[in-house]
């Protein structure tokens, strides 16, 4: 019931911030309407980081505690993170074409390391399909999830470490937000969209975790059935 309420609140929040981002906030003086794409783009990028961070932490938790519930959390983070990484890349491409003149540039460190992040976690999800043994699967996935998370700070700081098309941090640099001051409605809409997407992320994480737990229980039941049938066959002999 609480999860349903969370889902409803998230739905209203996303709908509201989408309408504000598209129709209420004025167009940017320099970038025009294309700047509206920044609201869901930044929110998606933040949630990609958060999701993969959760996957890495839950993976460490599994390696330490050997609790399969942590593996379900890691799986939820990876799947949802892949989706938000794709959204961040897609939004960035749709913004890049009118503003930079190109959809994509492989020489840009932020774009390339983000594409690598997506590939790493798609690989993580594929790796999980290689075995039916839940414990072996969780261990392999945890190792890959932790190693792949090394790319998160590389993606984030790539704009500071190397030169490319992508601009350096905006919200994290007070001098860039305050001088000249960004209009309050731009900042509020951005933060509101980040909050709305984060609520949605929480809802999705809960639901994806529930699915992982149900699937795990079904796998366990199937394994027990198989064991029982083998045992019965041995007894009958």
């Amino acid at each position, binding site marked *: 019931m609480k999860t349903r309420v969370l889902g409803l609140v998230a739905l209203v929040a996303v709908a509201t911030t*989408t309408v504000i981002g598209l129709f209420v906030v004025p167009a940017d003086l320099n970038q025009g*309407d*294309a700047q509206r*794409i920044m609201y869901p783009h930044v929110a998606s990028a933040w949630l990609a980081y958060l999701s993969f961070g959760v996957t890495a932490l839950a993976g460490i938790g599994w390696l330490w505690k050997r609790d399969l519930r942590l593996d379900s959390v890691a799986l939820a983070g990876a799947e949802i993170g892949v*989706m938000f990484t794709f*959204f961040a890349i897609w939004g960035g491409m*749709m*913004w890049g074409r009118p503003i930079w003149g190109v959809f994509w540039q492989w020489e840009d460190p932020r774009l390339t390391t983000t594409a690598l992040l997506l590939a790493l976690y798609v690989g993580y999800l594929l790796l999980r399909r290689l075995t039916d043994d839940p414990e072996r699967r969780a261990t392999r996935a945890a190792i890959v999830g932790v190693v792949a998370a090394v790319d998160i700070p590389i993606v984030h700081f790539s704009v500071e470490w190397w030169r490319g098309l992508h601009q350096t941090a905006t919200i994290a640099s007070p001098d860039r937000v305050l001088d000249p001051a960004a209009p309050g409605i731009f900042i509020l809409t951005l933060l509101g969209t980040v909050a709305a997407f984060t609520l949605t992320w929480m809802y999705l994480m809960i639901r994806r975790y529930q699915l992982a737990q149900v699937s795990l229980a079904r796998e366990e039941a199937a394994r027990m059935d198989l064991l029982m049938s083998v045992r019965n066959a041995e007894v009958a002999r």
Partner: protein
Amino acid sequence: MTDAGFVIAAYGVIIGGLGLYVVTLWRRIRAARKGR
């Protein structure tokens, strides 16, 4: 394509994709609980 076209393409895929993922997740949960 105009700026508005890029904005529609961005929001359409992101918001539409979120909605599609939610619906798919519900269906997957229901199917798993029913044992399908």
